[in-house]
Structures are given as C-alpha cells and as structure tokens.
C-alpha cells in the first residue's frame, strides 16, 4: 500500500519536470524587478533633496520634536506624579496639602486623594487631559524654531492614553517649514510609547482612598496587591497622611489623605 503511493507520486514528478524551471524563472524575474524598483524609489528623494537644497535638515526638526516629546512627557509625568496627579496644583479641586519639614523651614505641597469623606483623587482621564494640554502647549516652544532661524506653520494635535505599564502619546504635528524662500514639509505623525507605571500608581492610590473612605481610614492589606510598587506612608498628624507610591524607575506618586469619618 505504501509503495503504491510512492510510485504514484514519482509518476506525477516525472510528468511535470519542465514546469519547476519555468516557475523558478518567473520568481527570479519578479525579485529582480522588485529590487530595481525599490532602488529607484530610494534614489528618488535623494535626487529631490539635492534638487531643493533646503538649507536645513528637516530630520533635525523632526528629531527635535521627537526628543521634546520624550523629555516633556517624562517631565510632565514626574511632576504630575509628585504633585498627586496635577501638573499645576492650582487645578486641584480642593486646596492642596501643605506641610513643613526639615525643622519647619521648608514646605511641600501636594494634592489630596481623600479629603473629609470626598475622594478628590485625579482620574485617569484627568492625567491624560493634563498631559494633552501640557504637551500641546510645550512641544512647539521646546522645539525652538527661533533658534533654528526658520519660519514654520502647522497645528499640533496631541492624543495621550495613560494605560497599564505605559503612556502612549500620538502627536499629529505636520509642519510646513520655510527658510530662504524654500518650503518643505515634515512628517505628520509621531508616536511615543513610554514605559511608565503611573496608571498602576494612580489606580493603587484610588484603591487606597476608596478603602479608607469605606473603612474609616483603614486600608485592607489583602486587597492591595501592588506588583513592583512600594508604598511609603508619612503620618502628618492624627488624621492626615502622605502616601508615596514609587517604582524602581524612581517615579513617585504622592498624595495626601485627610479623612474625617464622623
């Protein structure tokens, strides 16, 4: 039975011996055609740049936008985390917590997560919203077009998503650069996916304040699994505590808690 099958296969092989050579030929032809085409495509822009001779490398602008995006996002996350979720504490829904330290000569200010019986912790959307506004305002300034001595036109649109383990920033910033009567366009989209645990930190903070509110200031230890996050507590007085959630990267999310449960 097995031999029969082998024989049949061999018979098929023998009958089509010319076809493989034809197929191989076609494949080689296609590969060659594609190679030549791609070469021609790659060469085209070079020719264009040489033709335009724009007195500035647009890659420099794009790379500045990229590095500004990265640095500003990083800074904004740090400030935000350190202030209890607010880049500008003036936007906190209640007056921030202030306390003195180092022998009463220095003070620290940060937002509350819980005040009285109210949860006033920033929402995840609040984080995204602020990052959005911050980046929209700061990126154009950060690129410093003036220093590059070029004119530019173009609107920036930022879309930030704060998700588990990362912050994703989509920036649409198509620029028309003008210098010496010449005009060139930069690329439109920039995408940054930055590793960050700010989502986890805020979420953990929310669980803490919710538990505190529902349990007269207590947290339920068993319900607070926090992989990779350390929690520090600094009691300020009988009812006020500073919580400080940090990860190994040095990011610190601090917030105040002042529960009154009468």
């Amino acid at each position, binding site marked *: 039975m097995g031999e029969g099958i082998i024989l049949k296969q061999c018979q098929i092989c023998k009958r089509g011996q010319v076809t493989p050579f034809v197929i191989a030929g076609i494949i080689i032809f296609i590969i060659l055609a594609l190679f030549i085409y791609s070469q021609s495509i790659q060469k085209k822009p070079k020719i264009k740049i040489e033709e335009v001779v724009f007195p500035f490398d647009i890659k420099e602008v794009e790379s500045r936008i990229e590095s500004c995006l990265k640095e500003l996002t990083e800074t904004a996350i*740090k400030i935000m985390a*350190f202030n209890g979720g*607010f880049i*500008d504490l*003036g*936007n906190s*829904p*209640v007056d921030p917590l202030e*306390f003195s*330290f*180092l*022998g009463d*000569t*220095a*003070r*620290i*200010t940060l937002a509350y997560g819980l005040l009285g*019986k*109210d*949860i*006033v*912790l*920033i*929402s995840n*959307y*609040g984080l995204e*919203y*602020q990052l959005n506004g911050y980046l929209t305002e700061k990126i154009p300034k950060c690129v410093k077009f003036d220093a590059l001595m070029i004119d530019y036109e173009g609107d920036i649109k930022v879309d930030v998503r704060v998700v588990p383990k990362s912050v994703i920033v989509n920036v649409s910033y198509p620029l028309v650069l003008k210098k010496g009567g010449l005009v060139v366009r930069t690329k439109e989209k920039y995408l940054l996916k930055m590793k960050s645990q700010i989502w986890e930190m805020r979420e953990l903070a929310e669980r803490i304040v919710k*538990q*505190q*509110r*529902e349990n*007269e*200031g*207590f*947290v*339920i*230890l*068993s*319900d*607070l*699994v*926090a992989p*990779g996050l*350390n*929690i*520090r*507590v*600094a*009691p300020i*007085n*009988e009812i006020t*505590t*500073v919580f*400080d959630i940090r990860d190994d990267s*040095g*990011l*610190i999310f601090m917030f105040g808690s002042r529960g009154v*449960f*009468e």
Partner: protein
Amino acid sequence: MKKLLIIILLVILFQGLLVQAEELTFVPEVTELNPIITKVNNLDFGNIGKVGQGDEELPLQLKGRGEVKEYKGFYRINSIGETVIVKFGEYIFEVPSGSVIELQKIIEGGPKILLDLGPNSNGKIRSEIKAPPSGRIISNNKTIEIIPPLIMTPQNRIEYTIRFQEGDYVTFKGNEEVDFDVENSVLKFAKDKMFSYRQRDSKDDLTLESVSEIKISKNGLTGKVLVMGEENLVMGEVEGSNVFIISSSSPERKEKENIIAFSKGFDKKMIFGNVDYKDLAYDFVLKTKNAKVSILLNDINFLDGNGEVRKFFTLADSVVENLVKIENGKILFKNLFGNPTVERAFTKVDPEYKSKIFTDIFIRNEKEIVEISKLGSVYSIRDLSRENGAKFDIYDYTNYGAELRGFQEEQLGLYNYYLVSGFSKSDAVAMAYYSLDLKTSIPFLRAGFYPESIKNFIYSKISFDTIKPYLDIGVPKREIFELANRKIDPLRVKEFYDAGLNLSNIFEVIMLDMKPNDQDFILYRKALSQSKLNYFVNDGGLYARLHYYGIEPEKVNVYSKVELHGSPQDIVKVIKKISPDQVKSYLENGVYYAMDMVRLFEAGIRPEESTKYRKNNKYYIYPGIDNKDIELYAETIAAGKTAKDIAAMKILGIPPKMAKKFLEQTKDLTVLTKEAENWKEGKMKELGLKIREMYSIPFLNMLYENWKVAKRPEKDIALVIVNRNDWNGVFLLEGERYYSLFNSGYHLLLAEASTDDEAEQIIKRVKNDFGEISLALIGGHGTSEGINLGPTKDEAGEIDKSDKTFFETLNTGIKKDGKIVLQSCSTGKGIGSIAELISYSSGRIVFAPNCDTSIRGFIFDGNMKFENVEYYKGLGVTQKFEPIKTK
C-alpha cells in the same frame, strides 16, 4: 398574804420606775468620736443594737464575749478571747479572736463590712458554726468563705484568701480594705493592690496588681490589672469585664466566657471573648471582640472573631500608632500620629519611654498574615500572605528632603548650585524642587519670601519689580500675591495704609471699589470696633461683604451687643437675614455659631425648636428629615452618621432598627450597601446621569422626583447643566451646593451634557415639560472664550462664541427676568468674554467670574430668590452682565 403580794408588787413597780428612771437618765450623745461602749458576754444571741435595711429595722445580735462600740453611723465590735458571732437578719458574720468588725447602721444594697483581723487571731479562724476550719461570711445560700492560711507578717500585715466557689480564690497581702457585696458575691477593692489570684482551672496562682478599681466575682474579674511574672516583673496588662485570668496552657471555655490564659513562663497566651491585653514584652496592645486568639511570643493568631492590634513606635519624637484591625476575616491597617488613641503598652512601666528596641510582631488569621517590623531605620507593615503583597513603609515626614522629592539630575544640579551659592539646605531643596531660576528668585529671597511663595509669583509671571511698591508701602508678604495677581494698583493700597488701615484681605475691599474715606466704610469701622465683632475690625473680607450685601452701617450697630462666632461670610448672612432678637433667642438656646444659625434659620427652625435638632453639639438638618427622625435614628446618629445619612436611609426605606443592623455590618450606607448602589444605578440610568460621585442618595432622589413630577410645578424652575468633561473632579463636590437651590424653594432640575447640542436639547425639553426657566446654571471648565462640556476641545464639545443657536435657545427657554450663572473659570474675563456674549445674545442677566475660580455659594434675597453668586476668589471677581435693553 395580800400585804405580802402588795409589797412585792410595790417593789416591782419601784424597780420598774428605777429602771425607767435609769434609762431616762442614761441617754448618751452618740458621736463619731465618743461612742457608747458596751461589754457583752452572751452564751446565746442577744440584742446589741439595730441595723436599718430599707424600711425595716433588723435586731443586731451577738453571741460570745466582745466589746460593742456604737458610733454615729456604725458599730465596731471587738472579739475578746474567742470568736464572736454577729447576726442581723439573714446575715451571720464571724469575728475571729482579737479581730474587729465594722458594720454600717444603715444598709444599702447589702451590708458593708470592714474586717480588721487582729494580731491575736494568729492566722487562724475558728468557727463555732459548721465544721470547716474556715471563717466565712454567709448570706442565705450564697457563701463567701475566708479560708486559711491567714498569716501575720512582722509589719502587722496580713494575708487572707477569699474563695468564691470551689477552686476559685483571691489572696491578698497587706492591710487591705475590701468591700464584700454579700448579696451579689462580689468583692471590690481599690487600685494599686497586689494580690494572688486563682480562678477556674488555673494551674497556678497568678500575681496581679490592680491598676483600676477591681471587682471580682465567680464570673471573673472586672477592671484593669497588671500581670506579674517572676520577681514581680510586669508581663502584661489585662482589662475587661468579667474576665477569667488564669494560668494554663490549654484553657477550656464555657459559652460566652471571657478568658485570658497564660502559660507557665508567659510565652503563650490564649484569649477568648472580649479582652484588652497589653503585652509589655513585645509592646503591643490587643483588643479582642468575640474572638479566639492565640499568642505565641510575638505571633498573634486570630483563630476566630474580630479585634485590633496596636503597635507603637517613635518617629520624630512623637509616638506613631500602627493600628491593625481584624474584621470579618480581613486584615485592615491605618496609622495614627501625634495623639495615639490608646495609651501604649510600655508607658505604664516606663512613662519616659522613648527608644525601646523595636520588636517585630506578626498578626494573622486563617488566610492572612502581616508583619509589623523594622529594617534599618524604616518601620513597615507588610502583607506576607501573597506574592507582591502590599507593603507600607512608614516615614518620618519631618525628614522628608531631597531624597523624598525624587530629584532628577537637573534638579540635583540646581540644589547643589543653590547650596554653593550660600542658601540654606531647606531653601536649596525648595528652590530646586520648584526649579526656580536663581536670578529671578534672588530679590524675592532677599526680601524674605519663602521659595513656595516665590514659586507663585514666578509661575504667574509676576516680577519682583511689580511687587516692590507693595513692600515699600508695608503690605505684609502674605497679602502681596493676591494683590499683585489681581493687578491692583499699589496706590489704591497706599490710600488705606496712609489712613492707618492695614487690613487683611485688603484686595476684597479694593476690588469692590471701596475707599478708606467712604462714609460707609467709616461707619462700618466705628460700628465694628464698638461691637462684640471687634475681632474682625481689620478684616477686609467683612467690610467687603457688608458693603456687597447692601447692609446699612446702622444695622451693624443693632447687632453690636450680640456675640457672633464664625467666618465673615456667615456672620454677614446672619446680619442680613436674622433679626437681633432672633439671634439673641438662638444664642439663648445654645446656637453659638453663625453657620448653625443660618442653617437653622434657612430651614425654618425657630430658636426654641433648635435644641430638638441638636445631638452631641451638632445640628442635624437636612431636607427630608425632621426632629422626630433625629429621635428615631438616635442610635444611628450616636454611631456617627450624619443627617444626610439619615435622609438616605429614609429614602431607601431603612427603618431605625434595620439601620442599626446595617451599621453593625457596614460603615457607610450610601457607599457600601448593595441596595443603595442598585438604587442609585437605576435612578441615574433613568435620568441619563453618569457622574456617579456627584450624587448623594437624597440629592439624586430629589432630582428624580423633580424630573418625574406629574404636573407642571408651581415653583420657579432652576436648571443646572453640568459638563461631562470634569477632568480634575472639581464638579464632583458640587452636588450639595446645587442642593441649596432646591432648599431655597426652586424646582431644581439637573442634567449632564457633553456637547452644546445636548445642552440645547435639555433647555428645550425643560421649557416644554416644565415651563420657562427662572435660573440656569451652566457648569464646565472654561476660559473667556468658551465653556467646555465634552471630552474634546472641538466645537461640538464646547459652548463658544459661534454657538448662535444655543444662545437663541437660552433666549426662548429662560424667563425674561431669568438669570444665568456660569460656573466656569474666567468666562467673565475681559471685554467680549463669552459671558458678555451670552448676555447680549440671550438677552438675560449673566453672572460669571473674571478669573479661575469656583462657586462659594449663592446669595438669596428675602424671598429666597437667587440674587447673586459668590465665587471663592472674592466678591470682586463676580461679573454681572446685563443685556442691552431695547424698547
């Protein structure tokens, strides 16, 4: 014979007269110092006096040889040579040889006896009643036995033992004064007494010292005692009611008994029921509640039931208390600082205790285990039961510094730069933290501003040159930012300072265009300085409010003798609304704070009724509840619930008894109960509301009833449209503020919107279904260009200057004399603001702020109709835009 009989009768009569005469002659004055002394030698019981018990007088009898001293309030009976037996009513007492018994003449709740065993008793009690060689106090069927040994010490100290029932006894050392409550078989004694104690199945005697007054009965010990180990070393402290303190490794418990059992050597303890225990070896305080707990050295194992453990340590010279609660199988934690609620374990032994070596402890139940420990200098509490279990490291905030601030490279650079520039460490930390530029900051620092306030100036782009004129005038630094930020001309401030008026919150009066020489201002000042409100005489906020609310200076005079307490806002509300007589009447009824007075007055509660709304010095006022509810839910209130909670319970149909049951199960009815959550979810869904946190149950119920009302309401309509793009949560807290519109008599409706179209539809719907709107409030994050409603900043999510159809809808939906309030930052800022445009386009009066702020409260006129709005940043920020009137 007759003569003889007559003689005998005469003799008897004569003798009788003599006895009577004798008795009449010997009526001694009984005093505390001069007792009547009678020597008695009775072979059988003979009367020696009387003891009063209730309305009865019981004969006091004595058998044996003794000396009876009758004082004003008591008898003192000494036994002479042998045991004397004293009896009255059903009570029989034995007084051993050479001993003294003191007995009160009037008995209240059982005889009170002081037994002073004399030296001649030689430690032995002989009894002529019943066989055992023990002294005893007998009352009916209840017996408290005094059993040997009874030992005299050289210092005239005695030791005696009291037995309650078979196997239980207490041994005292010393001349103790002990109260025997014979009726209830309870032994009472004062604090600081040391005694041996054995109850139930105790293997050995335990040495205890009373820390409080102690009661011991066959049900156990009530009070607080120290438990001593070898050489009287304190091992722990026990407190409780009816606790058996025993020495045993395997104690047995009968139902509902409270037991704490110590193993020999004190390594192991077992606790049943409700017991408070302080462990001095491991410095923790344990409180059990219907629990079964085993403690092995530092390992506290909750085998059943609930309780809490407090562990203390010292941070920054203050005691911090880690409080761990075991409740329904879960382990909860919080820490308290500064003023721990329970006296820590070690302070009893060492009141000056500061730095005992910290000992780790473990707390566990069936599933969970947590550790409170110290590693290096860090105290922490950690969940050991699972991988990645939570860990809280507890820090001393006073040493928060650069490290805690998590400085990045650039900030560390700044920090070092400031340090080498000669700034103090703390200033350097703060400057670096705020990344403050040195050149800009230096003049501020030199002028004495803190980095934190410098930050405000720099962030708001206020230069030092701008603020210098204020400093030159002498304005205190704390006032300058508010002035500079509002661009108030320093010359305006100078006018006040030149007139000697160094007011706090001076910006408030200047923003209202008040001047130091205004007649009103002078009269206000005069009235205030002569009144009991003179402590506000330098507060610009009060002048501003008096002026703003249109209060005549003479009216302030009328209130000059009334002592009002509270903030200027509340005090002015009182002056505006409540007559002096009513104020006096409120004060006479114990309403001292202006805020309470206003709340009571606005709720229509008369002064004489106010006490019905007061519990624990708080007033319980909330729509939907009255004074009867306060009484009905008294226990709920006592458990810490608010008037709002009571209102919520009524709405949810939770009667007081059920509320009590709920409270035992959960703490916050509005948050935790499933019924409440389901109720809320259903109602919100029906009304199309999504911002869950904004609505309390009573508020939501009110909205629901108002939206679902069967016929058009007669009340004026107030409509609140609130945005769904509240990214910083500032509107979440506004629910209660909107409620005040309802309280003032409006038919309040509230809806959420994400777009201008949605807002438009809401207004149309309200007009069609309920009638024209009297007051519309639009809440959303704003600028002078628009009001944001939705998550996007495009045209649809924002009410902007191009939304003509929206403005037209306002025009048709709102009454001609209706008003619009914008709860939206800066919408009234500058010429051509969105608020101005809305007023112009809609033809209605619009109130809006000229800066970033939120609403502090609404101002109502005498008919409780909306009159004005006050924003947080002061009265001057409210801009009122009136439409151009056309003929």
